[in-house]
């Protein structure tokens, strides 16, 4: 099988997921090849890094490719795919990959599956229902496009391939223009520096319940953070968000209250030294990453915990 892996980088750094795509490609290529594709204005240094793990690295360089746009990524990838005929195109399931990959698939009339965690021939697996179910899907034709979840294919295979200029240029101007990157908001507390985090999810139910978490956090000498729904509802500021699109934290204690444990959140806290999760739903995926779990109503457990901690302190 000929497997293409589209690399991603930002702010001068190759996304480690690009190597993970190649790890997967090397595992499933059989007699075929694992080939990286890197697109940009000057991508030599990324190509060299990728070549360690690829049979071949295709460079597609042009001034107009300095900043990613889906229009031009799709344009050059279509040209390359049309000429080189890959069986599978792997793309990182990221803000960037998740955007251009489906567009590319639509243009190629190719099957697409997103957020893939396993590939076996034409059978691919992914989660659904925010991690509570899994499905095995059969791709009914190739070429196919897959976006791959980060952190799954970490075992690297050193290959040492060649770097080739694909000789491809964009055939048109991008309709979408890149303007600028916007830096993350900086708040009064940096949750990434905290040793103890009391983190709340949808289960906290209302802004008026945040003080309960604050009281607990203050007794523990920690800070309050939250998962996406809490931030979306404006119950906590954006700089308190834990997850892929927020902050990655590794505190000594992560107390997860009413957090279901969607992958996007888990990637932001799974390396915490001690994770204790309280959730009403016994099937909540957070219990898959927590060290200790409590199936209970947080509004019954937290006040008891506060009382006991006050007793110790007092």
């Amino acid at each position, binding site marked *: 099988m000929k497997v293409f892996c589209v690399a991603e980088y930002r702010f001068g750094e190759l996304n480690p997921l690009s190597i993970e795509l190649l790890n997967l490609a090397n595992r499933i290529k059989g007699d075929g090849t694992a080939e990286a594709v890197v697109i940009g204005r000057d991508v030599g240094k990324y190509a060299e890094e990728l070549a360690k793990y690829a049979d071949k690295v295709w460079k597609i360089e042009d001034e107009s490719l300095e900043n990613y746009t*889906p229009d031009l990524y799709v344009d050059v990838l279509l040209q390359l795919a049309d000429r080189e005929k890959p069986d599978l195109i792997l793309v990182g399931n990221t*803000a960037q990959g*998740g*955007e251009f990959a*489906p567009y*590319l698939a639509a*243009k190629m009339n190719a*099957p*697409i*599956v*997103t957020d893939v965690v396993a590939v076996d021939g034409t*059978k691919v697996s992914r*989660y*659904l*229902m*925010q*991690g509570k*179910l*899994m*499905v095995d*899907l*059969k*791709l*009914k*034709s190739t070429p196919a496009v897959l976006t791959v979840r980060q952190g799954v294919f970490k075992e690297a295979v050193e290959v040492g391939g060649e770097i080739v200029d694909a000789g491809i240029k964009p055939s048109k101007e991008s309709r*979408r*223009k*890149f*303007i*600028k*990157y*916007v*830096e993350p*908001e900086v708040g009064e507390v940096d949750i990434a520096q905290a040793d103890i985090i009391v983190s709340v999810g*949808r289960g906290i139910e209302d802004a008026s319940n945040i003080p309960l978490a604050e009281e607990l956090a203050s007794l*523990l000498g920690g800070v309050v953070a939250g998962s996406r729904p809490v*931030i979306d*509802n404006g119950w906590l500021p*954006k700089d308190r968000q834990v997850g892929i*699109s927020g*902050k*990655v934290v590794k505190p*000594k204690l992560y107390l997860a209250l009413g957090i*279901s444990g969607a992958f996007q959140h888990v990637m932001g806290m799974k390396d915490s030294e*001690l994770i*204790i999760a309280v959730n009403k*739903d016994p*099937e909540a995926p957070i*219990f*898959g990453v927590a*060290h*200790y*779990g*409590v*199936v209970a109503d947080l509004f019954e*457990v937290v006040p*008891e915990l506060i009382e*006991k*901690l006050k007793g*110790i302190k007092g």
Partner: protein
Amino acid sequence: MKIIVLAKHAPDPESEISVAGDGKSISQSGLVYDINDWDRYAVEEAIRIKEERGGEVVVVGVGTNCDDTLRKCLAMGADRAIKIPADTFDPYQTAEVIKEAIKNEQFDMIFAGFMSQDLNNALVGVLLAGMLDLPVATAVTELKLEDGKVVARRELEGGYLEEVELPTPCVLTIQSGINEPRYVSIMGIKRAKTKEIKEVSVAPSISTVEVERMYLPPVKKAEMIEGDPSQIASKIVEILRDRGLI
């Protein structure tokens, strides 16, 4: 300004979830359906634009059971709805039938929620953009309209945003948190009964993927703490003390 919004009637992933007897689909028992959470934000964003600049908001639903969600969108302020009574698990087919059903609509923008709360594919909006060959931006957290163009901020990793500019017509997928969706009362939904839901039957072509098996994921389980709330709290305190955290 005319905006088409895609709205899905979807089960809440926090409802009780199990696999159906065929081992290939989600069991309907225990599922609680509502408008897909991301689509609420997309509908709200479209209605705000209409309220500010005039125009029309047309909401499109796919599925034989999507009426409640379409009614909710109409109650929020959408002008009319298109229902495509096709049930499919394949987002490719979903995008395809939408493309067909809206082919006679002139529009400036199509909004879709960033992903669906049940299948989590994040596909239909972008597939549709590709099929229509329109510019696209996903995970939009902020947008401004200027003459014939849209300036959108889209969510990247690590709290970063990317600001981009697109011409209209275009397709935007809307990230949750972009606004505060309005609440609709049961009365509001009843009042919206006079608004039109037009049924457009489109048969999807052959699917691109096939479900082989659906199952509960194998998970490493946490050590569970049992007891009444007081016992649970004592046990947590003990764990924290053992670790020197208090």
